């Protein structure tokens, strides 16, 4: 059961590399959509934690999504919810029908829980004196948030937030388990027809390594730009 007769060793690897690289946009699109979605949702969660009822809901959300594996969450959204009548026959079915959307939804919910924890820690690290001082100066709530809280939060949260983004980029590979043809999905498809597991997975691993390295480099640069010490 050796796949179709290829054009030789280097030919096979080159074809595979091309197929895998062609799937990079799917992986990147999923990552960017999740990064934006999860960050916004995390902001909502942190805001909700300031109130009593909202705090309870936010804490339950974080508990569930941080306490279970992302793979299980993806299966739950993809197969679990699709088995429920209201989802299956509801107006949102066209979205839930799409594997990519289900992966996006599960990853966004999951990552929002982790990012919310990062933001909460950063919020707690802002000296309360600063906020009191701003209030004493008569700063309005909105201005206080915009000028004092958010800029510091961004800087304080950035290293941990960056780690979460790298984790998220790696997690996109789980989308392949619900038939999404991302980098890992395409790799598995190539293997199914060539039975050449190790070479193909190594190629895919190299692609992810390149992507995470690029993301890490980008985050470093942003961190330096935001460093008030002038960014060596």
């Amino acid at each position: 059961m050796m796949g179709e007769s290829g054009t030789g060793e280097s030919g096979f690897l080159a074809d595979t590399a091309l197929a895998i690289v062609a799937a990079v946009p799917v992986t990147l699109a999923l990552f960017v959509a999740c990064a934006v979605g999860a960050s916004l949702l995390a902001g909502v969660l942190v805001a909700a934690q300031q109130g009593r009822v909202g705090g309870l809901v936010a804490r339950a959300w974080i508990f569930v999504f941080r306490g279970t594996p992302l793979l299980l969450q993806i299966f739950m959204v993809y197969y679990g919810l699709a088995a429920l009548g209201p989802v299956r026959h509801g107006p949102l079915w066209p979205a839930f029908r799409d594997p990519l959307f289900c992966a996006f939804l599960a990853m966004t919910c999951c990552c929002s829980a982790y990012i919310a924890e990062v933001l909460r820690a950063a919020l707690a690290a802002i000296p309360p004196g600063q906020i009191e001082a701003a209030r004493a100066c008569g700063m309005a709530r909105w201005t206080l948030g915009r000028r004092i809280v958010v800029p510091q939060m961004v800087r304080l949260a950035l290293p941990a937030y960056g780690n979460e983004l790298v984790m998220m980029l790696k997690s996109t590979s789980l989308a392949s388990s619900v038939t999404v043809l991302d980098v890992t999905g395409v790799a598995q498809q190539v293997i199914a027809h060539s039975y050449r597991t190790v070479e193909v997975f190594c190629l895919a691993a190299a692609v992810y390594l390149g992507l995470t390295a690029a993301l890490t480099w980008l985050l470093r640069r942003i961190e330096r730009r935001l460093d008030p010490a002038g960014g060596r």
Partner: protein
Amino acid sequence: MIGDDVALPVLLGFGHDGWALALIAGAGLTMALSLTAMAIGTVLGALLTVAQMSRRGWLAALAQGYGLVLRGVPELLVVLLLYFGTPGLLAAIAALAGLPAPGSPPAFLTGSVAIGLVSAAYQAEVFRGGLLAVPRGQVEAAIAAGMGPFTRFRRVIAPQVLHHVLPPLGNIWQFNLKDSALVAITGLAELMRVSLVAAGSTRRPFAFFAAAMVLYLVLTSASSAVFRFAEARAGRWAGGR
């Protein structure tokens, strides 16, 4: 015949057609898998820390490179590569030694090694941070007070390192526990796999994935309680803060 037309409470129960025992046994295997992975990660992570702090440039670079690769590649691919790659690798090694091919190692072993390899990369960072957190002056003072290297490690370094590393180690443990679900693709009947098999063969995915989520929540919250307890103890040991 095959879990067909059986009511949901029966499917989730302990009877002949029920999957409750299988799910609980799966949770047990998940726990065993994660503990083995964590242990592998701790040993390898400590070795990596030593290598990173080594004066031999190539050794430090090797440890550094290991960390970069294992933290930059998806855990899923590490599991897949190890599962499919090791039989060939072992056969090649055996052929070099003139032995017959040893066959493929059991899924439990490849799974825990895969998660352990990733865990080691993160644990090494934590150990390094913990060691750097011990003020240089204290070590010097201990030497001046005439403490031997073993006493120094036991009385001065270890308590403080432990105090520093326990919270991040708790985090890594939680990641191990959740990453162990990836081993499901190798066919090992841990919690994720059992829930997938049950969901597929009974065609009741919502119920079984929900049940698995509850069991994972039990595992993660119970183990985080254990870590909190240990942190409180270690805090007292390190001089009570």
